[in-house]
């Protein structure tokens, strides 16, 4: 198969899966929260409410997009594009199996961190261009939070890179298979927790949802967004949830691999295993979201700068010492 045909097929597959994963996670969220709150959740749309997310998306598609008079139109209109482009770009490096991957980049993890930092610009410009005080505050909070938690995110990955001696995602999974243990057990437990906390903050989910903080800032940086542009932010959020959880399972939980299953069949069970692990992690995040209030902006910054960053630096040092000495 030529490179271009292969690329075309892969892009089409991602085009199909990304929204499906987002909808799947939306369903998990609505059903999961309903279960936690002792209520039935969506029931009437389709099969016991199972196509509810699709119906929601369809609803947003035909909603009027209101663009307020005072906004900075080009910036306002294109702000969601930054976010969704960055998030979809990350699909490149998610390995479903050693071969089922869009592209196994040599700098895979580093690529992840670089690209995910782009969405900060989308959020900040969305907040600013809305010409709304709530949006501006939300945008600033979001940017302040995204940068504060990007560091622990980056630094917690370093431990994995030290152990795996590679930045390619497939390489990292293979290393874990070689180890016989996923990295979460083999020394990177703290890093995993830091990664998950930082990822939750990066996704702006409760308890780190001050940028949206609907009880304070009404809807934060997307207060003025409506209709389709709101949907794009919303879908990006869930695609991001999928990507982050998938990356976390790859880096720390052994990715597509499960012990005892024959490695030659990995192309068949790999995707299922990874998606299973991803949804499991996502469900934990959902459970956290529905049981915690949100932090205050200063408490959040304190947590990042005074706890997570020093801790992840210590983790790097400890891992490095282990690596060199033993």
């Amino acid at each position: 198969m030529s490179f271009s045909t292969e690329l075309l097929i892969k892009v089409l597959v991602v085009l199909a899966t990304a929204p499906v994963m987002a909808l799947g996670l939306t369903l998990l969220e609505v059903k999961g929260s309903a279960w936690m709150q002792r209520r039935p959740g969506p029931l009437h749309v389709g099969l016991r409410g199972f196509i509810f997310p699709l119906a929601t998306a369809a609803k947003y598609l035909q909603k009027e997009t209101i663009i307020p008079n005072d906004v900075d139109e080009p910036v306002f209109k294109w702000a969601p594009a930054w976010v969704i482009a960055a998030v979809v770009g990350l699909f490149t490096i998610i390995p479903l199996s050693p071969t089922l991957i869009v592209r196994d980049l040599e700098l895979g993890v580093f690529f992840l961190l670089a690209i995910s930092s782009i969405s900060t610009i989308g959020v900040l410009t969305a907040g600013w261009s809305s010409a709304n005080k709530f949006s501006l505050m939300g945008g600033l909070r979001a940017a302040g939070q995204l940068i504060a938690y990007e560091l622990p995110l980056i630094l917690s990955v370093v431990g994995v890179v030290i152990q795996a001696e590679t930045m390619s995602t497939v390489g990292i999974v293979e290393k874990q298979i070689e180890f016989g243990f996923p990295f979460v057990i083999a020394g990177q437990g703290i890093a995993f927790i830091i990664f998950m906390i930082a990822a939750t903050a990066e996704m702006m989910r409760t308890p780190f949802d001050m940028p949206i903080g609907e009880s304070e800032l009404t809807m934060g940086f997307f207060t003025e967004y409506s209709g389709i542009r709101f949907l794009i932010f919303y879908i990006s959020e869930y695609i991001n949830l999928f990507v982050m959880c998938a990356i976390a399972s790859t880096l720390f939980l052994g990715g597509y691999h499960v012990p005892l299953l024959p490695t030659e069949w990995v192309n068949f069970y790999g995707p299922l295993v990874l998606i299973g692990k991803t949804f499991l992690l996502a469900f934990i995040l959902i459970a956290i979201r529905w049981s915690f209030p949100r932090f205050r902006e200063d408490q959040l910054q304190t947590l990042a700068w005074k706890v997570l960053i020093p801790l992840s630096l210590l983790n790097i040092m400890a891992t490095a010492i282990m690596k060199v000495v033993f």
Partner: protein
Amino acid sequence: MAQTMDPNNMPILSEASVSVEIETEDMTLNIGPQHPSTHGVLRLVAKINGEKISSVEPVLGYMHRGYEKLAEVRTYPQVTTLVNRIDWVSGFANEIPFIAGAEKLMEIEVPERAQYIRLILTEMARISSHFVFNGAFPLEIGALTPIFLAMEDRERVLDLLESVTGGRFHPNFNRIGGVKPAAGAGPTTKKDIQDLPAGFYHDTKVAMQKVLEAVDRFEDLIGGNEVFQIRTKNVGVLPKEVAEEYGVSGPILRASGVEFDLRKQSNYLPYDKFDFEIPIGENGDCFDRWSVRTSEMRESAKIILQAIEDMPSGPIQAKVPKVIKVPKGQTYVRAENPKGEMGYYIISEGGLGPYRLKIRTASFSNISILPIMLEGALLPDLIAIMGSLDFVLGDVDR
């Protein structure tokens, strides 16, 4: 907020001390009237510097309905329907002090059974009000689950209220001299009327048991939550001197460490017959306000369970004239409502309706401390403080 320096007291400025300080200007932000967490249509005009609030001015009146004026052109029984709508989260409790005031002016002795029924329903109103608070307050600081649990539990209590009064929010159940027969009990002229619905005692016991369980659950889910604790502890501390000066009453006053509960101090309903405690806070912060209200639910459930046990028999209505005319006189009757002290100053000139009715509502005084408490707070704390005051706009604006 630029601070002016006293020229006489100014230290010598060295080069190092004249460092560049980037001062940012204050921004005026309207919070409300259409805002998710202002409990309706309260508007706060806040001057903020970044996240920090330099001053807040509440703007009221978006719900002002002029009840004091309306009451002057209503007969006494008609006023009861009005006062139901003041604090609609505990509509039943609003009626009590007004009815008690009118009875005092008319010098009517209310039958004991009617008193007990009033007491039970008042406590149910208190429980339902505090359930709403236990849902709304965490919601405001970002926890979305408790409100669903609270609403589910409150439903049982509201069902009981409805089964007796026929109304969930606005029962309009009290009559001068007693209470109405139970909802759907048929014409009141019958010889044998039914004052409480069938199975009421049993259902109440079950429901109160559930309330006690719910309180335990809330103390675990909300109070035991670390994020909730760091968001509420030492936030919005209200010293008791300030609270007294501003007429802040009810759970907020008790959270500031003042052991004052009209149920113990006053005798508008036979509370002295029951054994219950008054929960008090220590620091007067948002967490204490939450915990006082939550413990109060437990005490209320206990009171109801006791009242069910020794419910006296007898009539539920004293003898009153067909057309109620209140003799000339003035009185102030107050009661411990879920939100705080509610009182009515009734000036009667012997007419069909009051000459002047001053309605003292709890939330009005309670939120008048907002400008003081919010000065210098952070924006997220504004929401936490506002939520912890548990006000209802109908109770503020009347």
